[in-house]
């Protein structure tokens, strides 16, 4: 076996990580857009509390977030047992890893989109309303397209965060090869066993390439979208 080729387990970790990160990014996007719009454009009672809760995963130790998820979505947790009745299980499944990653990446995505919505000139939204567009159409035809660079940037940030998420994931769904062992968990495991250095190094290289690639793609997409809508 050559030094460069990955073992089956290592491949599995890479594939799983990509899947978890992609699902986390796509599934949280609509919620992030809605939350960002709410925080950017609406004043309501308890706004600072909501804002604080959204940002909490950013400042809490990831282990705490993972443990809270375990308490809430575990098999005996209130949400976990409720959802289990509909066949939705997060605990010790890859879906749980995706949930943990989505929650950890959520504040990053919301921040990027919120800044972008705040930068949209509200006078354009007024113009849209005088031309006959109701609030939903104003959002869909003016606010959303002009926010696109921020949404792309936010999604990629969330993806990159999900690729690197470790603490919350391992606490919530453990480290089961083939099910919940993502790239960082696999690297961690390899560093704990004798002779795992080569594997850990290979996965580290992959991790660097994917993260760097994601950042470059996001820069490129955001720049292109920005050029298209520049006034």
């Amino acid at each position, binding site marked *: 076996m050559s030094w460069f080729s990955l073992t089956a387990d290592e491949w599995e970790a890479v594939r799983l990580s990509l899947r978890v990160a992609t699902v986390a990014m796509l599934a949280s996007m609509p919620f992030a857009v809605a939350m960002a719009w709410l925080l950017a454009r609406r004043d309501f009672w308890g706004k600072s509390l909501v804002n604080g809760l959204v940002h909490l995963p950013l400042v809490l130790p990831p282990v705490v977030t993972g443990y809270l998820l375990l308490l809430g979505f575990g098999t005996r947790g209130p949400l976990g047992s409720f959802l289990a009745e509909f066949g939705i299980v997060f605990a010790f499944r890859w879906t749980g890893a995706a949930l943990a990653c989505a929650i950890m990446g959520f504040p990053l995505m919301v921040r990027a989109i919120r800044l972008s919505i705040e930068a949209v*000139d509200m*006078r*354009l939204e*007024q*113009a*849209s*309303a*005088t*031309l*006959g*567009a*109701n609030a939903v*159409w104003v959002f869909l*035809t*003016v606010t959303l*397209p*002009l926010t696109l660079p921020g949404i792309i940037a936010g999604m990629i940030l969330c993806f990159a965060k999900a690729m690197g998420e470790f603490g919350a994931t391992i606490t919530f769904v453990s480290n089961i090869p083939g099910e919940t062992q993502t790239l960082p968990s696999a690297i961690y495991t390899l560093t704990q066993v004798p002779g795992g250095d080569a594997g850990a190094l290979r996965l580290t290289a992959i991790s660097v390439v994917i993260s760097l690639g994601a950042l470059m793609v996001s820069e490129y997409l955001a720049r292109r979208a920005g050029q*298209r*809508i*520049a*006034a």
Partner: protein
Amino acid sequence: MSLLVDVEMILGDFSLAARFDSPGPVTAIFGASGSGKTSLVNVIAGLRRPERGQVLLNGEALLDTARHIDLPPHRRRIGYVFQDARLFPHLTVSANLAYGEWFTPRAARYALRLQILDLLGIGHLLARRPRDLSGGEKQRVAIGRALLASPRLLLMDEPLASLDAARKAEIMPYLERLRDEIRIPIVYVSHSVNEVMRLASTIAVMEGGRLKAFGPASDIAQRLDLVPEEEREEAGVILDMTVKQHDPATGLTELASAAGRFFVPGTIAPGGATARVRIRARDVMLAAEEPRHISALNIVPGIVAEVLAAGPHAVTVRLDCNGEAVIARITRHSAGQLGLRPGTRAFAIIKAVSVAGPAARARP
């Protein structure tokens, strides 16, 4: 058309209270910046909600706080041309123009795309993006976008203010064609005497959040006290005249008004049509006796109605010329020499007149 606006609102430490009922078709809201003009049109558009107020368009309530009626902007069908164009940067000119059209119910559409493209001269811009347009082009596209939504009323908030003199001169004829060809009721906000006098049929003068004067353009034009100091040079009267005939030999067109006959260069309109003529006070000289052997084409007799101070060394004199007013701005010295007092006879020697297109009279 009839537009009733009655508004009371508080904006920080500024309060706005105004009420007028305009027969249109072009209502100008005139006043210095900060006088509350834009707030007033924002109330008409529904972008601002006053503490108390009423906006009735042809009798239909768009806003009536007493009856708890407040149509949101998108249901008012009022076009709004903003000072800063506000074209959608992510859409082409063509998509910008189609935007309002798309939201207008089919049965309510009256605007014809080709006619409007032609009227505004924007047909060649369709594939461009707003960032590739000049200021004047942007404003014309913004007017087209508002018109293609087939609005019941068009609001224009200082549409020329952000443009330089050359661009202003470029857009003005389009606005006059808009008034005369599309015949849509317009509310035109401006601080420029020149724009207001060229376009308006009814004028509301705002000052410090209050309505200072309101009435037909020809009446308001005579009120020199309404013209701000820095715009005094542009003060003058407007007379609606009847086109008599054009003489190809001299190149002059004869116009008739109660004040007398006027001759202006060029052809204006077919005989029988009405034309709006503007005479600025600084273009009028006064004589105590009928002048003879003089190059000026237009001399009308009148009786001095009013002499008002205009700065330390000048006065403005309002002549009653058989019911029509002509205003002259002359030096205080000259007024003394001629012995001008209310009741004395004088002749107005008019050095220049400008014809501002067919009269903006209310149409049936």
